[in-house]
């Protein structure tokens, strides 16, 4: 039955690839889960070196990607899911390439990114050896009104860790997470001087009053590099993109790798692996489309919106902002100080006018409001390269997905 389920699901996946190139799909997973309901859990719990779960409001994708790179650099084969595959079906779909027809995992360790709510539901069936928690953002007004609800979900996940629990010492909720008796707790955090430099602190994260001393520490952050202190040793690492949040994700990944690998952790290997890492999927990523270089910046909540803006060069010459149907409560756009953007060439997406209204009140001049995203993208890419800097697109998740499909980006 297992082999049949896997073959059927792979056939569905092939069909989807032919019919809808560039789009992701959870349909193959649905098929597999229906035909062999226990397969998913059986496989996830069967990785020889264990199961790592990464969860929290934001930074999951980046941390997961960085941790996978670190473990691979140390010789482990890693199964990891991508940012869209956070739920049961998406996960099963992703696993289909990674398992034998007998339903056994090929890789030695699994590093899975899990959405807070779905993760809390599924984790009772799972046996994670390591849990890594990023943060609890207090601004998820569309989905989670009360950060304490998120904290409770993360607690459920935290308590399942059997060997290691890795916590963000700067986040009041995460820092206080309970652990099971067998799990060893370790922490990561930033230095005082790092917070002092940030115009909006650590964003919508409830910050702990004192800074971490014992753990992986972000000592300093420059435009494209950061200095981490790992077991007392300073290690300089290139960042995949601008922003203190990337340095914090790095610290989380390093702290997790340190906990998992123990004495096998090699700072030099870590430094090389991380510095070589390409930016994850749409967050501060540079791509070439029709011969033109474009920087893509994904914003998922007021905090990431603010932090990303704070790290962009001011007054970008060619900027497109696209906000789509994932933004249901438009108030989510308004706590963000967008004034440093200066001017925007085009505002697009299904919520273009909502975004343009916010920009108007912040004194940002807008060239055109074009709700038709594909047309806006075509016109934008056709513009000659800017004299200064790079064409930049800031988009919400829905607009990002449509953009990636339109330009056939992986």
């Amino acid at each position: 039955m297992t082999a049949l389920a896997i073959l059927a699901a792979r056939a569905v996946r092939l069909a989807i690839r032919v019919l809808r190139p560039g789009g992701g799909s959870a349909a193959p997973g649905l098929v597999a889960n229906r035909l062999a309901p226990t397969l998913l859990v059986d496989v996830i719990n069967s990785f020889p070196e264990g199961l790592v779960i990464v969860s929290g409001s934001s930074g999951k994708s980046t941390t997961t990607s960085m941790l996978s790179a670190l473990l691979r650099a140390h010789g482990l084969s890693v199964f990891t899911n991508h940012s869209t595959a956070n739920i049961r079906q998406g996960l099963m779909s992703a696993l289909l390439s990674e398992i034998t027809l007998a339903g056994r995992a090929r890789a030695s360790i699994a590093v899975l990114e899990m959405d807070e709510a779905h993760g809390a539901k599924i984790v009772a069936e799972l046996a994670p050896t390591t849990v890594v928690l990023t943060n609890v953002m207090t601004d998820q007004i569309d989905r989670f009104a009360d950060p304490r609800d998120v904290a409770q979900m993360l607690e459920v996940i935290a308590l399942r860790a059997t060997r290691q629990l890795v916590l963000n010492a700067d986040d009041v909720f995460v820092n206080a997470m309970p652990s099971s008796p067998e799990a060893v707790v370790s922490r990561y955090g930033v230095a005082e001087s790092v917070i002092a430099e940030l115009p909006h602190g650590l964003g919508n994260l409830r910050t702990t009053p004192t800074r971490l001393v014992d753990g992986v520490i972000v000592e300093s952050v420059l435009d494209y590099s950061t200095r981490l202190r790992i077991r007392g040793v300073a290690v300089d690492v290139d960042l995949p993109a601008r922003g203190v949040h990337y340095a914090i994700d790095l610290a989380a990944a390093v702290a997790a790798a340190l906990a998992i690998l123990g004495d096998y952790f090699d700072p030099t290997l870590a430094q090389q692996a991380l510095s070589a890492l390409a930016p994850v999927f749409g967050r501060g990523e540079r791509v070439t489309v029709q011969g033109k270089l474009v920087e893509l910046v994904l914003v998922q909540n007021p905090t990431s919106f603010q932090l990303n803006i704070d790290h962009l060069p001011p007054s970008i010459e060619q900027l497109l902002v696209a906000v789509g149907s994932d933004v249901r409560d438009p108030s989510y756009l308004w706590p963000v100080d967008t004034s440093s953007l200066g001017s925007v060439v085009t505002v697009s997406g299904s919520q273009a006018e909502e975004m343009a209204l916010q920009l108007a009140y912040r004194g940002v001049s807008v060239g055109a409001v074009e709700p038709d995203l594909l047309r806006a993208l075509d016109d934008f890419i056709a513009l000659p390269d800017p004299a200064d800097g790079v064409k930049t697109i800031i988009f919400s998740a829905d607009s990002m997905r449509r953009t990636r499909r339109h330009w056939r980006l992986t």
Partner: protein
Amino acid sequence: MELLTTRIVLGSGEVIDGLGMLPGEVLPRDERVSGDVVVESRFGTLVGFENHARRYALPVDAQALGTVLQGDGNGTPERTEGVIAGSVLGSRIRGPLLAKNPALADHLLETMTKGAYRATGANATSADRLASIVRSQTLKRIASA
């Protein structure tokens, strides 16, 4: 706004004293309310978004901001939204309330400055034009639902 009322009753039964600047009390709801809200008021039709999990019970003699045409508002059988208490205006309409409802914003500006200031100029005009598009998109969305 809820903290300005006389009291807030939480789901646990715990009661928080409000500042008492607005009449009435805030009571728990079973479910969160979130979606478009349209209210008919003396400042015209107010359009916005509501996102909360409480009912606002106004005393009989209190004046509401308006009547709910779409959405939940105060969540009481009277189908009212918000409150007007003397010179204080309370509402749980967001989106934001004033940017989406320039007529209300203008009224507040005029009242506060005793007519000395009006929003004019290209910035105000283009912002209000965007607000107008958003309002009609919202109303169209509601009509076709």
